[in-house]
């Protein structure tokens, strides 16, 4: 038997085969031609004039995107320019219109052309495949492979295996080399890892430290080792000093009552010393034993000052170290706020300051920088003004910014000795200028914050939210106080709230004891004197409420603007007007009586810091120490 016979190669089949073969050839040519035309057309769209420039374009890395603005044609641009020079030439206009039409038509024609080309290409490929397959079918010769001995297969396999292993190794080498080339070829300017980023400036502005990708350990509450001796001041120490804005618990109540009730800046009466402060700042002094601390800043410099409490000598001036944020432009602040509005905090070991650009610095009592950190420039309409608070060995920063839905505001707790974040929580609030306070509610310490629109209490140990209440909408500049288990808080555009601090969850409906609408302050913080709540607007109106029941008792107007918050010394309230004039008043349910009028002789927008027998207050230019001088006859026995 013969294969030819078997294959039944009749003339018809041969003819069919030849036809299919020829069709296939033609189809190959057609495919090639269409491809060439499309390529040339593509080159033309890229602007290639001839084959050479096309090759240049293809090889030279021209853009792969060929869609072009039809009106970018140089001819058209020239015509347009001519028309611009000669705006009323109707002939030119007609030319522009004609060319424009032509270009637009060409543009769409081009697209249709490519589309048509693609379809034709598809068609010819189909023809090609069909004819090739037909040809193959008609002239299918059965192969006649030699039989192979399985044992030789084994040898073949072994050889193949050797070669294959070699090839795999070669491939592996190629992969490694390629990877190495790519890895060394692509460089980066960015910090290459999170650790390096952290070293650049810890936790840059507004970036969420909390989140799925935060480096572990940086956010989580650090496990407190048992062996670590607590390194923080005792309650008694705190009471003796004035460690933060408005003193112990942020209440504005002095532990001492032996303070002078008369002074005069002009005559120097009872002014023990006054020392100029180099840079401006609207922060209030803080005191720890024989040191008074202040900070000051302008757009460029940020400084912390340490004064000798006895002599008033400026012992040292420390400039806050430069951070990426401080090297950037200064934030936009209101003049009333300034670049150093937040009051510092001190724990007897170090003093801490924060500035309007979010830089935090810790200095020891000799003015050496212990650590510094940048929290990023806050998005704050008037400039950051929230003062620092402390809880044990934690520095607490209310870092509110943006609008309430911006997710930018946060509460940050830093380890006082190192500045490392201990915890941080996001706050659903807008920017605010109120300061956090820490009070004790039973066994639970509470960190209380007021902002727009939430008042939120946290556990200062771990940032856990304890409760929250809604309502303090609008700019929140007032720092709350707590007395008799009631948080007194409010803002100019909302209401006054007395909120019981023993709640949990959202206590808006359940724990607001009373609300008030009169005498709402905008910047001055409240003072609770016994059962009386004293509010003061910046326009000089004092309003007294019953702190427990919320009943308005009386109002009194002073001819002075108030920015400084009132302070209670014994049973006397110290008030400082913006221009330095001061009043010492005694309160009762019926009204208030002025005990003494004083004058610092210098504008004053800050609150005083009280100590044993003397107090410190910052004027526009100077730091004053007021105490009983030799000739003072008001000195208590």
């Amino acid at each position, binding site marked *: 038997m013969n294969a030819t016979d078997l294959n039944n190669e009749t003339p018809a089949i041969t003819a069919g085969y030849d036809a299919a073969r020829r069709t296939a050839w033609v189809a190959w040519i057609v495919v090639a031609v269409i491809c060439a035309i499309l390529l040339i057309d593509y080159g033309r769209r890229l602007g290639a004039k001839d084959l050479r420039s096309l090759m240049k374009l293809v090889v030279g890395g021209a853009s792969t*995107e060929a*869609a072009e*603005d*039809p*009106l970018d044609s140089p001819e058209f641009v020239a015509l*347009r320019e001519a*028309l*611009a020079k000669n*705006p009323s030439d109707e002939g030119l*206009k007609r030319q*522009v*219109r004609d060319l*424009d*039409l032509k270009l*637009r038509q060409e*543009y*769409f024609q081009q*697209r249709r052309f*490519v*589309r048509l080309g693609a379809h034709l290409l598809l068609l010819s490929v189909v023809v090609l495949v069909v004819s090739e397959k037909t040809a193959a079918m008609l002239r299918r010769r059965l192969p006649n492979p030699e039989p192979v001995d399985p044992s030789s297969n084994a040898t073949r396999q072994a050889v193949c295996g050797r070669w294959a292993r070699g090839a795999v190794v070669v491939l592996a080498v190629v992969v490694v080399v390629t990877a190495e080339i790519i890895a060394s070829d692509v460089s980066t300017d960015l910090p290459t890892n999170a650790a390096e980023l952290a070293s650049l400036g810890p936790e840059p502005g507004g970036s969420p430290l909390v989140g799925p990708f935060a480096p572990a350990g940086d956010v989580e509450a650090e496990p407190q080792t048992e062996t670590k001796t607590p390194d923080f001041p005792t309650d008694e120490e705190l009471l003796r000093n004035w460690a933060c804005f408005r003193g112990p618990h942020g209440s504005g109540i002095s532990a001492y009552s032996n303070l002078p009730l008369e002074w005069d800046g002009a005559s120097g009466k009872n002014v023990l010393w006054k020392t100029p402060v180099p840079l401006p700042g609207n922060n209030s002094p803080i005191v720890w034993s024989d040191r008074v601390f202040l900070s000051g800043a302008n757009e460029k410099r940020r400084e912390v000052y340490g004064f000798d409490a006895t002599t008033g000598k400026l012992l040292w001036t420390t400039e806050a170290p430069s951070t990426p944020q401080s090297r950037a432009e200064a934030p936009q602040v209101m003049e009333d706020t300034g670049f150093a509005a937040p009051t510092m905090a001190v724990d007897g070991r170090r003093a801490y300051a924060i500035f309007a650009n979010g830089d935090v610095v810790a200095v020891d009592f000799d003015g050496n920088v212990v650590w510094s950190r940048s929290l990023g420039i806050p998005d704050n309409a008037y400039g950051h003004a929230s003062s620092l608070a402390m809880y044990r060995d934690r520095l607490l920063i209310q870092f509110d910014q943006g609008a309430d839905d911006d997710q930018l505001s946060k509460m940050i707790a830093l380890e006082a000795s190192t500045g490392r974040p201990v915890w941080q929580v996001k706050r659903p609030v807008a920017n605010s200028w109120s300061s956090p306070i820490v009070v004790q509610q039973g066994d639970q310490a509470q960190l209380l914050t007021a902002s727009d629109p939430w008042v939120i209490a946290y556990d200062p140990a771990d940032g856990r939210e304890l409760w929250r209440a809604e309502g303090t909408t609008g700019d929140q500049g007032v720092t709350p106080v707590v007395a008799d288990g009631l948080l007194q808080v409010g803002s100019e555009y909302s209401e006054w709230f007395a909120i019981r601090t023993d709640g949990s969850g959202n206590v808006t409906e359940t724990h607001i004891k009373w609300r008030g609408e009169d005498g709402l302050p905008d910047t001055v913080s409240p003072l609770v004197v016994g059962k009386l709540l004293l509010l003061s607007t910046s326009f000089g109106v004092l309003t007294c409420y019953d702190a427990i029941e919320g009943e308005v008792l009386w109002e009194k107007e002073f001819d002075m603007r108030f920015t400084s918050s009132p302070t209670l010394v014994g049973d006397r309230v110290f008030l400082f007007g913006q221009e330095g004039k001061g009043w010492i008043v005694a309160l009762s349910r019926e009204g208030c009586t002025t005990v003494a009028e004083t004058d610092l002789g210098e504008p004053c927008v800050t609150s005083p810091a009280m100590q044993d027998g003397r107090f410190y207050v910052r004027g526009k230019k100077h730091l004053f120490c007021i105490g009983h001088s030799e000739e003072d006859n008001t000195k208590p026995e």
Partner: protein
Amino acid sequence: MAENQRKIDRRKFVGDGLRIVGAVGIAGATGFWAGRRAEDDDNLWQIDPHQCVACGNCATHCVLDKSAVVCKHAYAMCGYCNLCTGYFEPDANELTTGAENQLCPTGAIRRTFIEDPYYEYAIDEPLCIGCGKCVKGCTAFGNGSLYLQIDQDRCMHCNECAIAIACPSEAIKRVPAGKPYLPKDQNGGPA
């Protein structure tokens, strides 16, 4: 023979085991994915007009020869201006429909007179190539009533949108199939 049989049995057993493991694994993964998936089955690509900066990449980067992105007109936002900054060249010769005055490279905006002094502008979508020139002009000077959207009828729904890769402002997003368009006047700016 018996040994061979055992071998075959063992092989069968291992094979079955692997298959069961495979099938269970696939089923488990399917369950996981099905449980994870969002409420909307299907996602489409769409432009958030409030993020769009009308850079022109939509015209050049779509996988389609004529981009699936087209200009839409929020009529309710339009000022019906005589001097439409989306229609006219910045320093138009005169405020007429003459080609020398038009900004659109393909002449895809129709301007019709309504009544003094109002003109209505409409997009001739078959001509629009999504270049966004008019959008840029309208947003910079006018009310921003012209904006770009992906024509869902023409979009290929690629797994990875080529324009999204090229978009400078990350304006191209996956939207649920139930809300294929992000119209400007309905989703628009503050009321």
